[in-house]
């Protein structure tokens, strides 16, 4: 591709002389005018943004309805009946049969030594 010519400082200086430097203006005022004029179009854009999520809005009441239904089900479900005396006894029997008593561990021959070794990690 053919290259662009070098910039010509002499020509640039002559052009600056011909045009003069751009005058000084109140930049803050210009910026303020632009900002003021832009306020409404920018607000419209901000307002238009949620439209992108509008299709998902239909799901909000559905999710709320599902939540309420779940809570209602949980509240109306019949409570578990309390344990009877017979049930309690059965549970205790099972526990006694499967779990060694603490006293057995402590009083068994060499039990305290074993416990000490286990505690020291040796």
């Amino acid at each position: 591709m053919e290259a662009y010519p070098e910039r010509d400082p002499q020509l640039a200086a002559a052009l600056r002389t011909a045009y003069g430097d751009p005058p000084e203006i109140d930049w803050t005022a210009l910026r303020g005018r632009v900002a003021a004029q832009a306020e409404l179009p920018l607000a419209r854009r901000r307002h238009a943004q949620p439209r992108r999520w509008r299709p998902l809005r239909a799901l909000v009441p559905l999710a709320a309805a599902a939540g309420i239904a779940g809570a209602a089900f949980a509240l109306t479900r019949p409570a578990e009946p309390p344990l009877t005396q017979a049930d309690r006894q059965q549970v205790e029997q099972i526990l006694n049969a499967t779990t060694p008593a603490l006293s057995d561990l402590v009083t068994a021959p060499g039990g305290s030594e074993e416990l000490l070794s286990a505690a020291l990690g040796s």
Partner: protein
Amino acid sequence: MSGAFGVAAAIPLHRGATAQAAPDDDAALAEGVRAGDAAAFDTLVNRYMRRAFAVAYRMMGQKEDAEDLVQEAFMAVLQRIDTFEAGRPFAPWFFRILVNRGLNARKSRSLRTVEAIPESTAAHGPSPEREAERTELRGHLRSALDTLPERQRVIVELFELEGFAGPEIAEILEISDGTVRWHLHEARKTLKKALAPYERSA
């Protein structure tokens, strides 16, 4: 000259350099503007208004017209931000809006020639002889500039004064690289011819 045109003054004047390194966050700011973010828009305005005014002033020749043009261009940015392609540089896209609007405004107002330059900006020479020579040069160069086709004039201004790179100008004016080079060559030929008698003093 005051620091108001510091941006223009900082333009690197060498081949291939862009007028101003495109800030990395231009794309993010443009995205913000798309979403209606006033702070993002204000940052872009603050970033580009000085250069925009310099270009607009050279096109319109009047301070008030130039300010109006800059304001209109920024409003057009808001209207057309959805057409801005993310990933492309913001500056050429913005200056395309500005330059096209400026060209249309000039056409509709029949502003073929730029109005007289205020004396305050023209007076640089310390001696009356030097000032007289400058005035003569200015008049001569203005006549030469007035003979250039509108686009040619804009191209030479954007390239020599505003520091835009050739490909950026091609993007701004929506013409090919080759066309920009040709216009630049022709414009320089005309202006150099007009400047020839003054080269001795320069």
